[in-house]
């Protein structure tokens, strides 16, 4: 019997070594490239006709665009227009990685904390730079809640600072743990099907079918949560009132 964690194993497909750094092309990288190619294909191929009455694929591309555009508009406002391409890229990339991970025998790049933490750290550093660039040192007032007595501030300011610096960790762990837990659970129940055989195997099989549907929802939901939290963080940096 294989271990349920075996699906997360990174395999080197192409051995590369650049300046002493291991830069091998792995299965994780392969699936990221596939996600990028597919996402680009949906948008470029879908929008090639630019019909007034959209075809099915064009509707998909437009829906995705509109969905993220609405999200940025509602959460960041007009100042967020500049960052819309970034949020769209982030959302579509995570969505495609998550959903492609549901294909049997595929690999989910977002189930590795290196990948999600790289994205979350990029968002965190980017938002901090934008905040300081837009607001100057006034950005530090983010850590001082309004209308709070001074004695309480001594307690609240450190909490606010800690919660600010914990953002990249919670953002990355949320996505990675969701993917890890979902896929592990599916494989564990897959093991139950094999163990129980023809007699009792249908019960965990039915569970897997239902749970695959839930996993697809979670794959979308986690991409949505990652993107919307990025929007909320950007809103802090751009508008500064909370």
């Amino acid at each position: 019997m294989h271990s349920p964690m075996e699906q997360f194993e990174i395999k080197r497909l192409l051995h590369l070594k650049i300046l002493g750094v291991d830069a091998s092309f792995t299965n994780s990288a392969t699936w990221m490239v596939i996600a990028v190619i597919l996402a680009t294909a949906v948008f470029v191929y879908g929008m090639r006709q630019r019909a007034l009455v959209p075809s099915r694929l064009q509707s998909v591309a437009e829906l995705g665009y509109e969905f993220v555009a609405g999200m940025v508009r509602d959460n960041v406002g007009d100042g967020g227009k500049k960052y819309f391409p970034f949020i769209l890229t982030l959302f579509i990339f995570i969505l495609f990685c998550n959903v492609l991970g549901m294909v049997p025998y595929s690999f989910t790049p977002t189930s590795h904390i290196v990948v999600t933490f790289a994205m979350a750290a990029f968002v965190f550093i980017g938002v901090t730079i934008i905040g300081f660039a837009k607001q100057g040192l006034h950005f530090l007032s983010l850590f001082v809640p309004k209308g709070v007595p001074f004695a309480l501030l001594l307690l609240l300011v450190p909490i606010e600072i800690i919660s600010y610096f914990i953002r990249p960790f919670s953002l990355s762990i949320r996505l990675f743990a969701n993917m890890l837990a979902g896929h592990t659970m599916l494989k564990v129940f897959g093991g139950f099907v094999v163990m129980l055989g023809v007699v009792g195997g249908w019960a965990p099989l039915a569970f897997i079918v239902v749970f695959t549907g839930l996993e697809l929802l979670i794959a979308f939901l986690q991409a949505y949560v990652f993107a919307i939290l990025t929007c909320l963080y950007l809103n802090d940096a751009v508008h500064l009132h909370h």
Partner: protein
Amino acid sequence: MDASAAKLIGAGLATIALAGVGVGIGNIFGSFVSGALRNPEAAPRVFGNVLLGFALTEAVALFALVIAFMILFVF
């Protein structure tokens, strides 16, 4: 006590976090249903927030899972 036995107990204890998460998720959907029954018109508009709250709460359970995995596999 054996170190590996203590590990297993610790990983089991880490799942206590699920109690809080259960309360949290139940609270989110319970409030949503009772709110939706009072004002069905407004229900679709807040459903996105419900899902966001669900995902954020569920993540807390997964933090506990990560801790359990760390206890089991890292140390």
